[in-house]
């Protein structure tokens, strides 16, 4: 494969990964700082959908 084509493909893959990860991270940080997440935790590092909120973390509607 010509190096220039290979480099473009790798750059495209890296960019795609960074965009997906970046969006997740921005949403996560926004949510964390707002204090959202399920009542079991606020979506912190142990939240992969723990047993306290069922199989997936959900977004609580807090009616205050």
């Amino acid at each position, binding site marked *: *494969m*010509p*190096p*220039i*084509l*290979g*480099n473009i*493909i*790798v*750059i495209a893959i*890296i960019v795609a*990964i*960074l965009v997906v*990860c*970046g969006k*997740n*991270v921005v949403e*996560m*940080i926004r*949510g*964390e*700082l*707002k*204090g*959202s*997440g*399920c*009542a*079991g*935790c*606020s*979506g*912190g*590092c*142990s*939240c*992969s959908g*723990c*047993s*306290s*909120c*069922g*199989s*997936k973390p*959900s977004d*609580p*509607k*807090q*009616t*205050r």
Partner: protein
Amino acid sequence: MGIKIALAGNPNSGKTTLFNDLTGSRQYVGNWPGVTVEKKEGKLKGAEYKDVVIQDLPGIYSLSPYTLEEVVSRTYLVTEKPDAIINIVDGTNIERNLYLTTQLLELNIPMVVALNMMDLVRKNGDTVNVKALSEALGCEVVELSALKGEGTDALIKRAVDAAKAGKTSQSREVLSGNVKAAVDKIAEIIGSASDSKFLRFNAIKAFERDEKAIEGLNLSSSQKDQIEKVIAETEKSMDDDSESIITNERYNYITGVTAKAVKKGRAKGELSVSDKIDRIVTNRVLGLPIFAVVMFLIYAIAMGGWSVSIGTAATDFTNDVIFGEWVPGFFDALLGVFGVVEGSVLYGLIQDGIVAGVGAVIGFVPQMLVLFLLLAILEDIGYMARVAFVMDRIFRQFGLSGKAFIPCLVATGCGVPGVMASRTIENERDRKMTLMTTTFMPCGAKLPIIGLIAGAVFGGSPWIAASAYFIGIGSIVLSGIILKKFKAFAGIPAPFVMELPAYHIPSVSGVLRATWERGWSFIKRAGSVIVISSVIIWFLSAFGTVNGHFGLVDNLFEDESIVTESYINELADRMDVPAEDVNAMDASLLASVGNGVSFVFKPLGFGNWKPTVATVTGLVAKEEVVGTFGVLYNYDDSEEELGEEGEGIWPRVAEDYTPIAAFSFMIFNLLCAPCFAAIGAIKREMNNAKWTWAAIGYMTGWAYVLALIVYQLGGLFVGEVAFGIGTVVGAIFLAALLYLLFRKGYQATEADKNLNAVKANA
């Protein structure tokens, strides 16, 4: 038309297990309006029950108005009027559980009692005559073993049938004699002010002088006076207060019920196996040393350098072989296929940025998994509940309550649920204090920091790894003592009553699931936050301005016409390093920014741009501290690449830190402001910006002072640090700390009687 069924019962009676079994993944979790109590509801599984909603109420011991959970449950039952109640009763603790049952029956809502843990009841040699119990209570009783899924189908059928029929339980008289007469009289006085369905319930609550219940009835002054007269007369005749009178009546009734229906296999006074173990484990003298030894062994096995330290062995393999040889080798071959050559920017980004950063963090997953596994085993067998009890004895000596330690136990997994667990603390001041100190406990994300320092600088010493845990506990205790002496936190420690579950063989699937949940979350996070952070750190450390020329610092440093001797001296002076130690990365963007701030950490022994940057990135996620190190130390010297000999970054890290400086770095990062997730949780729980900032400021200040004292005074003691202004400052801080610890402080009075969370939220 939908059916609503409420699930009510004591804490630890198996409600959550039953709820999860009944609803599966069809759950919704939120908060009850206006309070920080979890609300869970879900749709019942099964096509024939698609309109049935199960409302899981918080675990409560009674329907009194003393805790948020009790108020929330009672309000729901009285205002929402579910079609039926499933009252889950722990069969191994029938007498205590039936206390709530007697109150639920008074609500005149169709009810089915689910007698849970029947497998344990039989194992204990006890027998329960379900028919006799049902007859005595006046409602259906169904045997259940929620953990094994036995009896669930029969329970649901009975509950749904009861809801559809709308048939309430047959009334059984709980009260007797004068008390019954008094309550009947009060019911007459209340009359139409109460919903007829809840008249009996309200009359009893009015007799107990339940403020919330009385408020809801909107009684006239005359009615209130009449009720008060009836209560006073009864109290006088029975020589007891009204609440105690009702409590006694209920327990007398329960004794009668259990005499008819329950036969104990063990003689009265005979100790169970759990009781015998507890005599040692919660012993006044042995309890704390046993706990210290247990935690030391756990950290030693997970993170120490012993031959049994399986966590460390696995981490060494991951760091040295998987991420030291296999992964870089794989990417080298893969990138070669795409024509990405070594030495190019893209190659550097992938190998020195992403692979190095993510690899540095993932390398600690084995240690983390072993630690989580051991902690999960301890939790599952029931030992961790005893720890809170043991700590309460010590905490109480200092005006604290053991209840405040429970969030700390939770925080060893993740600080966020630890912070949320502070909701169980009714005393508002103690709750705030707990929120400010819970994240001192080393969470899962901090384990790589501990592992790195213990492994790289201290040769895998189990003492260093275990010390991180005890430094956390020590900080919580000392902070509690200091803060309690201020008016904002002063108060009498709340009584601590907790249930000790019986010891049992840990469930293999439960333990493995708990371990995997935590570990997988960590790995997923590494795949998102760490990837992004590693790329940013790599970019900022790879590019910079060298003697007025911007570009890749490694390439620029190879040009002798740019990197002159005077430039090297100027850079060495700016970075405060010897000229012969200057390398390309010192000229990077990251080094310039980090260097501008690093003076803050000079008194702590790590006033260098790399640890400064690592500490700051730790705010996003604590594991990022190690991820940053992975990038910064992976490619530190343009002439030498790590990974060829599979050494990883540890030797490079060890070169940069003296033992005392490394220990100080570990202390600061363990105790300072937690990650964004934990800050967000604190913000939510405090519900006050001022207190949130106070919490962050306190934790960071505490971490700074402690790290400074350790470095300056500890360093002087071991001969690593010379006497200087830092020593004087360290001594002043130590003196101040001792003063705050031992001063008399604000003495709590009756006027400071604990502000209850229920009143705080009223």
